[in-house]
């Protein structure tokens, strides 16, 4: 019984077990689901959500939220091909420029939230709307095709059979887990998330940490955008839209409190896996897009009831 209790009290582990269970059942009942290629594909899809949700996890842990994640993904996916200069054979200049823009957007979000005291939900939503307008002006309705070699390498190669995007996700996971659990700043923004007033009176700067975290959220969303562009080879308006809900859902599915102060990225990782698995299962069912969307929404709610529930105080 005590083993069961330990599992129930450990949301990341619970979510991992849920993923394993779904994979096992689906692998046994659905033809082709359990094939190595298919599972690898799921991992690859999950890595985009996982990387976008890395920044989201940090911001939510500090008691905020970033609703501009989808827009930042779209911005990087569309601007990167346009910003990559032809004289650069590696393509790294374009990548750096795109990431700098993503960080800049996050920094502006942080400025709005910390200095102008705009509630983060409004600040980031306004930012997303603003960016959408800019993109329509810049790209019009057409898709842009990427030629940047670094981005194509990231999206298409599989060193030792592992997609490069998954490798990137592993690196991001290691860095973010380190940041939360092994670096002073992690303890600081958890304290800010749980009790901003007490944290401030303990010498933790709200402004500084808010700026850092929203910038990081912009950075990770930008990284996800680059990976998505590499996998897709094309950027277009709306490419990042699905990642707003999924980045938040992955965080919450992993047991992180939406109110801040409690949780870990270790839960977001299986949360992202669970989301792509759900999407894949829905695709198998032969239903119209309307019904698929309804099923996806209902399933996310259902899954939240199982694994993402706030522990009772």
């Amino acid at each position: 019984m005590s083993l069961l209790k330990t599992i129930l009290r450990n949301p990341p582990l619970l979510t991992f077990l849920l993923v394993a269970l779904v994979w096992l059942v689906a692998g046994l009942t659905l033809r082709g689901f359990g094939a190595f290629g298919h599972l690898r594909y799921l991992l690859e899809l999950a890595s985009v959500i996982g990387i976008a949700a890395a920044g989201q996890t940090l911001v939510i842990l500090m008691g905020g939220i970033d609703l501009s994640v989808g827009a930042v993904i779209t911005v990087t996916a569309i601007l990167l091909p346009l910003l990559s200069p032809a004289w650069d054979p590696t393509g790294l200049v374009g990548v750096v420029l795109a990431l700098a823009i993503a960080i800049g957007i996050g920094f502006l979000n942080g400025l709005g939230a910390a200095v102008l005291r705009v509630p983060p939900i409004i600040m980031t939503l306004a930012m997303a709307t603003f960016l959408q307008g800019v993109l329509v002006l810049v790209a019009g309705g057409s898709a842009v095709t990427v030629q940047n070699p670094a981005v194509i390498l990231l999206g298409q190669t599989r060193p030792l059979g592992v997609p490069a995007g998954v490798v990137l996700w592993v690196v991001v996971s290691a860095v973010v887990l380190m940041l939360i659990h092994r670096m002073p700043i992690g303890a600081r923004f958890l304290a800010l998330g749980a009790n901003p007033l007490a944290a401030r009176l303990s010498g933790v700067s709200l402004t500084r940490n808010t700026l850092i975290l929203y910038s990081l959220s912009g950075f990770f969303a930008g990284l996800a955008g680059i990976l998505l562009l590499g996998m897709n080879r094309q950027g277009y308006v709306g490419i990042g839209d699905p990642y707003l809900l999924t980045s938040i859902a992955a965080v919450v599915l992993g047991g992180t409190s939406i109110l801040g102060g409690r949780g870990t990225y270790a839960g977001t990782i299986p949360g992202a896996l669970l989301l792509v698995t759900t999407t894949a299962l829905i695709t198998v069912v032969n239903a119209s897009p309307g019904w698929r969307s309804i099923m996806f929404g209902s399933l996310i709610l259902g899954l939240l009831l199982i694994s993402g529930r706030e522990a009772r105080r």
Partner: protein
Amino acid sequence: MTEVRPILEARGVFKGFFGNPVLKGIDIALQPGRVHALLGENGAGKSTLINLLSGALTPDEGTIAIDGKAVARLSPSMARAAGIGVVQQELSLASQLSIAENIGLGAYPKRFGLIDYRALARGARDVCELVGVTEPLDTPVSSLSLGRRQMVEIAKALFAKPRVLILDEPTSSLSAHEASVLADVIFTLRDRGVAVLYISHRLNEVRALCSHVTVLKDGGITADRSLDGIDGEGLVRLMVGRETGALFPPRPDIVPGPLRLRTKGFSAGIVRDADVLGHAGEVLGIGGLVGQGQEDLLLGLYGAIPARSIETKIDGQSGLPNNVAAANAAGIVYVPADRKHEGLVLTHSIASNIILPSLAKLARRGLRSRGAEADMIGDLARQLMIKGDVARPVQALSGGNQQKVALAKWLPLDPGVLLLNDPTRGVDIETKREIYKMLRRFTGEGRLVILASSDTPELVHLCDRVLVLREGRVVLELRGDAITEEAIVGAAMGIEADGETRIVREEVAQ
């Protein structure tokens, strides 16, 4: 004993949390027309017992009985219906609502399914008159001082016409005047046959108001008797379970050390034009009625609210700190009065709370060093006698132990100036004694302690020098034997002070 049937009783109740027994077989009987005192140190189980009596918790064993009949599962709404009213230590008012709305909350008089505001106003006016709340009834509670809010809270309990009234430290934020109004209210209720349970750490009040006492210690009962023929010392002995030494450590004959703090023309919040001097090795008390700028003075010195001054020197550095981080870097630390909301991150562990200000100091190459952190936490927990596993959330600790954590977290910074805002509010006597001893140890090490307090005896017996604030201005400075309750209270209330203030002002000017 008497034949009067108690209105509310606990019979042999047991209650534990997370496997720790908190109450071990408690009996208590609240009789009509009697003011019953409940005493005990923090952590003795008082709050738990109140929660059982009011239906907020269910006992593991034993029963709660109303009018002699055992109630199987008492719920808060059943308790309310049975006429049990509780005034909690933590204020539970909805601050956006008006006085009248708060008073009626949960028991709004209705007419045609809508709130009958006229009946509400009538009822609210009656109880407000009783407790001396004279503010207009549509005043939002958020604009009232802590003491006034407490009186509204009491009015709210009276509005439900209780047969049993439980008061948990009702006077901790009240002025002397408000406390005497409350005493009259309690006597009126008693004469009407209400059973009153009165919890306080102020023994003088208990002896003035109550006729019967139950003393809790470590979840058991050490006394259930009449208050006749027992003095303060005896009560303390029952609570602590052994002979007690003096509550306050002896005041050393200090030769004031060098100046650590000197500010002229200091203004912050409602504080105007204050001159403050602080020497190494000194406890400087800040007194006055509730909300006269004591907190603003401390927060301003701490850089937590905007402040300005004509001239400030703190430990040789010029100028006031601009923010909390700068204050911490300059060796200034602050322990807030409201430890639950301002002092501690309640849901986080004891260890996380203690480590928070020292994270950067203990980090090696940008990473936290678990070993060094564990050493420091263990060391502090031992030094301050914080009991139990440091991985537990702070909210599992009693008030006194929480306060120790709020203090302990600053020690690794080796602060030169400690700003303490009412550090012993709601803290039991034994922890008070420990805190006083600790403060004297700090001053012995050459630190400056600035202590704002609502507890006048604390100012009289602990402090070397006391500033009294009224309406944001320093109206009196006292030192040594001149520090008396009469002088402090007199100045706080605006009764003509003697010439001492002037003398001190001249000194500052030199």
